[in-house]
């Protein structure tokens, strides 16, 4: 959702190219003086959306139906962006934009495409264009239609925005691509099956790490070594980070993991694993175990300094007020308890933590 699909990038370039051209074309038309300023504004946005769709035809020729839809939709958008003085322009434009938005949502819901930045940006442009098409302007004739149009602006635009956001988000969470193991976490690309050498290296890393963090079963010793809990204590588990090790930038050093993970149980913190973290954002660490020890990084999460809590950024790139969008440097967990997902899984299984709590 936050990436640009390689076959969609051309659409972005087409849209950017169309923006100045559409603005110049509309400025050259005398008819623009006879309509409210919102109409040329909507026309420019529709021209951009149309250009994006036209631009995508070339990379979708193997999907003939999709390519045909891009052609028809792009042509319709560009035609309407030119015909803004037409009597039925508002009705036709609102219908086309609404149908395009809903059609796209059906398309991704059935798995014909995955939402990416180009698609979501196009939907953002279309929703804004829809608002500009519908909004009544002071001084316009046909007062009787104002109520109807205000109703549409107040209902159709919010409802379509909400449906678009929800569908894109649900589809992205339900069908993440191969590298997205869970919401917000991107897994390092590796070979599919571990070689015997990689299996041996992973076992060695596991044994060394487990042995090195054994003293920290007593959380007081972890505290003395510089580890500090972060985030709310009422969560099933908490990462205790050693800022000195983070700043020093040790790379996959079993004796100096940047973090420890404790289960928050009714009988106190119980050590369940360690976490290695790279210092730079976006730079994955060495991967001795291949697919067994793939690093992951959390991208586009909304972090608040208040209590070090987080949520996920929405498809339209907003975070709750008071939190900021960040990406966390790559990390690798080592679980010293029996984790169904594996010794190096991205997450600890919730049932494991509950079991420890009940023990």
């Amino acid at each position, binding site marked *: 959702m*936050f*990436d*640009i699909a390689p076959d969609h990038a051309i659409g972005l370039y087409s849209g950017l190219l169309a923006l100045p051209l559409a603005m110049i074309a509309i400025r050259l038309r005398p008819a623009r*003086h*006879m*309509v*409210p*300023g*919102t*109409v040329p504004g909507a026309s420019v946005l529709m021209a951009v959306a149309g250009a994006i769709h036209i631009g995508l035809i070339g990379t979708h020729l193997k999907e003939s139906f999709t390519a045909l839809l891009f052609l028809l939709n792009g042509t319709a958008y560009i035609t309407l962006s030119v015909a803004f*003085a*037409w*009597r039925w*322009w508002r009705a036709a434009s609102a219908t086309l934009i609404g149908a395009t938005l809903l059609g796209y949502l059906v398309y991704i819901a059935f798995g014909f495409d995955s939402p990416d*930045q180009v698609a*979501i*940006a196009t939907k*953002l442009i279309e*929703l*804004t264009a829809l*608002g*500009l098409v519908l*909004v009544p*302007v*002071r*001084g316009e*004739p046909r007062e009787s*239609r104002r109520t109807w149009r205000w109703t549409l*602006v107040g209902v159709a*635009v*919010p409802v379509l*925005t*909400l449906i678009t*956001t929800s569908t894109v988000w649900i589809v992205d969470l339900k069908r993440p691509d191969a590298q997205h193991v869970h919401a917000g976490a991107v897994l390092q690309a590796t070979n599919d099956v571990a070689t015997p050498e990689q299996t041996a290296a992973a076992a060695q890393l596991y044994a060394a790490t487990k042995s090195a963090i054994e003293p920290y079963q007593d959380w007081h010793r972890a505290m003395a070594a510089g580890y500090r809990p972060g985030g*709310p204590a009422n*969560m099933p588990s908490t990462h205790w980070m050693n800022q000195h090790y983070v700043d020093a930038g040790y790379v996959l050093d079993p004796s100096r993991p940047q973090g420890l993970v404790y289960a928050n149980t009714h009988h106190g913190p119980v050590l369940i694993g360690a976490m290695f973290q790279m210092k730079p*954002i*976006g730079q994955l660490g060495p991967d001795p175990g291949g697919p067994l020890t793939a690093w992951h990084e959390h991208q586009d999460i*909304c972090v*608040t300094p*208040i*209590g070090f*809590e*987080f*949520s996920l*950024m*929405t*498809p*339209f*790139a*907003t*975070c*709750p*007020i*008071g939190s*900021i*969008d*960040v*990406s*966390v440097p790559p990390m690798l967990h080592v679980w010293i308890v029996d984790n169904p997902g594996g010794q190096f899984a991205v997450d600890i299984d919730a049932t494991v933590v509950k079991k420890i709590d009940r023990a």
Partner: protein
Amino acid sequence: MIAPDVERLPKASSRPEAAFVVLLMQSLFWAMAGISAIPFAIAGEVFMLGLGIASLLLALATVFVAIGVIWRRRWARRWAVGLEAVCVAGSILLLVLPLGANRGPVALIANVVLPIAVIALLRQPAELTA
């Protein structure tokens, strides 16, 4: 054929209406960000509940400001320009700092282009009277 509702208009600007649309879009985005915090609050992140409610209140306030802009109220214009200036400054700061903030086209449009568009649309105080 020229439609009856596209006769030459009186000397009224449609900038406030265009700004209203953009403000409405932004309020919807903040509302959804607020709603998205609630599941995390339920999962135990108590502060997220406060941030979620704050986001929903900001979304509501933005709608009121947008309505004020439509009514050509001077206070609404001031609040809108102030709010968007804060948004632009915050977004640019996030883009500049090495925090790994998203720099994709959606983030740029939603957090930089739309606020600048509102400021540009409301830049003429003479259009609005109290």
